[in-house]
């Protein structure tokens, strides 16, 4: 057995202080423990941050909400204010994993979970994300559920989170603390595209710890989260969408938020689609044009071109459903 230290931090400052090279933070463990069993993650030390006092969901004066990093996914998805005011977030969280996993998984951990690309999870195989410079066997190999946008010759992995897709659409602000002090990282912006260094999933520096996710007041409009997968429950998205639409009395799109899951190394904010839609006349034509504007960026691989069609259909049909 590969030995490692385990320490439980009493507060965020202590957690950061305990972090050294080779340290990983542990919260719900629903991803990290799997990765340790597989030999993908081999930390020398685990600092357990699962019981840090970031376990509250609180309103903030500007009408937004502050969600602690150790709030369990099940508590977030069931929270009355979240369900009422941020339905796309509640739906996204509840569409992830299973009830048992959601009971363990935390908000911070959900944002920082690793890709489920089969090559990344198999230490017998090359993978630039796990072992930089070894290559990406998914590109010539099995990639039917991997990225169609934003990928590189080094990596075609997708980010697996549902929750992060909704947070990306909601302009979440991620509060982190580290040896360099506290800072705020906006979403989109926390996760990064693979480029030539896909081993880095996010912009966080070593030792930085997520403490809180803050949401501004919910934008006006009807919203939802819709996830397409290969079984009805407990599967990662082929493509998912967090969407919000607000149409004024003249039929003009006043506000629109669109983010896609399952298509990229990051939860993908569909900014081009949003730009195309806002100010245009709501309707099939505008929805299709918006989808096409975003998916013009798509560079599908030989066996995942279906995702382009799926994303297009999902954008247009979700917008259609949201229109009053």
């Amino acid at each position, binding site marked *: *057995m590969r030995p490692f230290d385990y320490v439980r931090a009493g507060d965020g400052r202590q957690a950061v202080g305990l972090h050294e090279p080779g340290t990983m933070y542990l919260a719900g463990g629903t991803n990290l423990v799997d990765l340790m069993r597989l030999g993908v993650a081999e930390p020398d030390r685990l600092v357990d941050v699962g019981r840090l006092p970031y376990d509250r969901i609180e309103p903030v004066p500007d009408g937004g909400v502050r969600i602690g990093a150790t709030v369990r996914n099940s508590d977030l998805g069931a929270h009355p204010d979240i369900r009422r005011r941020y339905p796309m977030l509640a739906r996204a969280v509840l569409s992830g994993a299973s009830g048992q996993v959601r009971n363990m998984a935390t908000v911070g951990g959900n944002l920082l979970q690793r890709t489920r690309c*089969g090559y990344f999870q198999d230490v017998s195989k090359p993978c630039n994300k796990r072992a930089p410079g070894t290559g990406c066997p998914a590109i010539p*190999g099995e990639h039917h559920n991997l990225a169609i946008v934003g990928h590189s010759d080094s990596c075609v992995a997708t980010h697996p989170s549902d929750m992060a897709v909704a947070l990306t659409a909601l302009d979440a602000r991620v509060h982190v603390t580290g040896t360099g002090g506290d800072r705020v990282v906006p979403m989109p912006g926390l996760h990064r595209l693979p480029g030539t260094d896909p081993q880095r999933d996010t912009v966080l520096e070593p030792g930085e710890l997520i403490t809180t996710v803050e949401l501004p007041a919910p934008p006006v409009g009807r919203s939802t989260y819709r996830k397409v997968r*290969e079984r009805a429950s*407990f599967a990662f998205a*082929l493509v998912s969408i967090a969407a919000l639409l607000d149409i004024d009395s003249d039929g003009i799109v006043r506000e629109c938020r669109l983010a896609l899951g399952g298509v990229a190394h990051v939860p993908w904010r569909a900014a081009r689609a949003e730009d195309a839609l806002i100010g245009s006349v709501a309707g099939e034509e505008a929805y299709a044009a918006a989808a096409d504007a975003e998916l013009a960026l798509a560079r599908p691989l030989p066996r995942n071109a279906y995702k382009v069609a799926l994303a297009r259909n999902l954008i247009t049909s979700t917008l259609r459903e949201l229109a009053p």
Partner: protein
Amino acid sequence: MNRVEGRDKVTGQATYAYEYDVEGVAYAFVVQSAIAKGRIRSLDASAALTTPGVLTVLSSADRPELGDTDDPELAVFQGPEIAYHGQAVAVVVAETLEVAREAARTGVRVEYDEEPHDVRLRPDHPGLYRPKVVNPGFPSRTEKGDVEAGLADAVVTVDEVYTTPALHNNAMEPHATIAVWGPDGDLTLYDSTQGPTGHRDITARVLGLPPERVRVVSRHVGGGFGSKGTPRPQAVIAALAARAAGRPVKLTLTRHQMYDMTGYRTPTIQRVRLGADAQGRLTALDHDVAEQSSTLKEFAEQTTVVSRVMYATPALRTDHHLARLDVPTPSWMRAPGETPGMFALESAMDELAIAAGMDPIELRITNEPDAEPGSGRPYSSRNLVACLREGAHRFGWARRDPEPGIRLEGRWLVGTGVASSTYPAYRRPTSASVSVLNGDFIVRVAAVDIGTGARTALTRIAADALGASPEQVRVEIGDSDLPKATLAGGSMGTASWGTAVVRACEALLKNGGKEATADTTDEVGEAADFARHAFGAQFAEVRVHADTGEVRVSRLLGVFAAGRIIAPKLARSQFIGGMTMGLGMALMEQTITDPDFGDFLTDDLAQYHLPACADVPAIEVAWIDEEDPYLNPMGSKGIGEIGIVGTAAAIANAVHHATGHRIRHLPITPDKLLI
């Protein structure tokens, strides 16, 4: 009748193979090959051997002595050749599982001379050949009448290729063994097996022991679906490891290792050609399959044999072709042969019905044979038509508009489909004893309950035969020291074991004594020459999302004719379980092989999708009362497998009805419907 061991199971008292408390036990972990083809150049276990807690390492470098090495999957560590990725190359034995696993991972350095591998089955594979027989002993090829003439004369024809992917059994309980050598050299194996007697005989032979020196105990088994029908390498490895360590040894395969070492269903590429006259009567049926086996062993799934059973036709050809690839040996998985074969045949029959402008139920009824088409033998009983009619009534088939792709509820396209199912009613020799103890009856037979409810069914059978209440009967199974029995496989357990139990009970009543035994070898051997099969009709209603291609099964009905149903509550579970597994096959299950690395990629329960509860509707099951005097004293046919057989075709046919798209390549994932 409730499951007699139900309380033991739900309270955690039921002991599974890995759970026996054995004094002084050590733990073993298997090292697997990292290449798909080649030779081990060197194997250096010195780092493992110097790891604190490691007791020993066994590998082909030691070439442990075995008896019969004819089965290359069981003749472990006998040479440097590697036949597939994940083949066992060494085992580490240690004081704890953790030490064994870590030393196996980091302390055994294996270097290979790798050769190019070939793991991809394709219809034009140059290595395809016709095996002499297919599982379990059918001829590969049969031909009757003039197929080409029948097709030429046909008014309507279907000529299509259907494929099914590699599938894995995924029993809940992993394959596990505890091996204990006694001071006198006797071996006890606590093992997760579908057949203690056969397991004992085979393992004894491989180890070079007389069978009476080996005992196999498997009181509770958490599923097998065929993958535990014969001993797997871990049983032999555990015995060798225990002998080398001088200690009892526990060995379980991980879920990942199960994918490599415990069998799977071969992928199939099937071509079906059907011809019919203007009335829908078949003029020809031609069914051919290409499938795979390993280079180690020939296992040929009997995929097209179903076409010898199902429909009347003047011209019938069935054939099998096998490619030997650098892959693990495929094996039995719930209804091997029938399951992939009926997906193809019953999809093709649906296509024929559409081409002929006929109702698919009427097409099947039109082609009801008088005798088994392949053999000419009379059926002991055949009630497919009754199943189809009863199912049509229950399902509301009469209201169905055959036009595909026209029913939209919201954004969901709705469709319904039907398919037939069939499974043979086998029986094999078994012995049993019954004795009287304080007014109660003890029934002994080396049967095994793999979760089917066999213990309960045998209790019922014995009680009925003795004229006693089930509470007076205690059934002892799951131990090779009990009277020898055939395996829980081929849906023949209850029929085989039950016959022996009934005969033993009859003998007891006749002799009026304290004990009686029976051996059904003669009775089974003398059975009259009938075609014995269960039949069924399976109906599905699906919803396919018009924008995303998601498929949801909203209704699933199976009506079966399987002789007398012995234990209704447990029988219903068997049918439902089979149909659920068929739903998984239809919509999501597939094992993807990586052509570059030569291994199975989707080798865990996160990546290999089995149906979740949310995928499974309230499944409706019914059966018709079937009297068949030519089966066995209970009048029963097996029920463990038929539930899976027609499900995938019924769902695929319903998807066509919903969308107008014919999906001939399983599973029916959204990408295939996004056109």
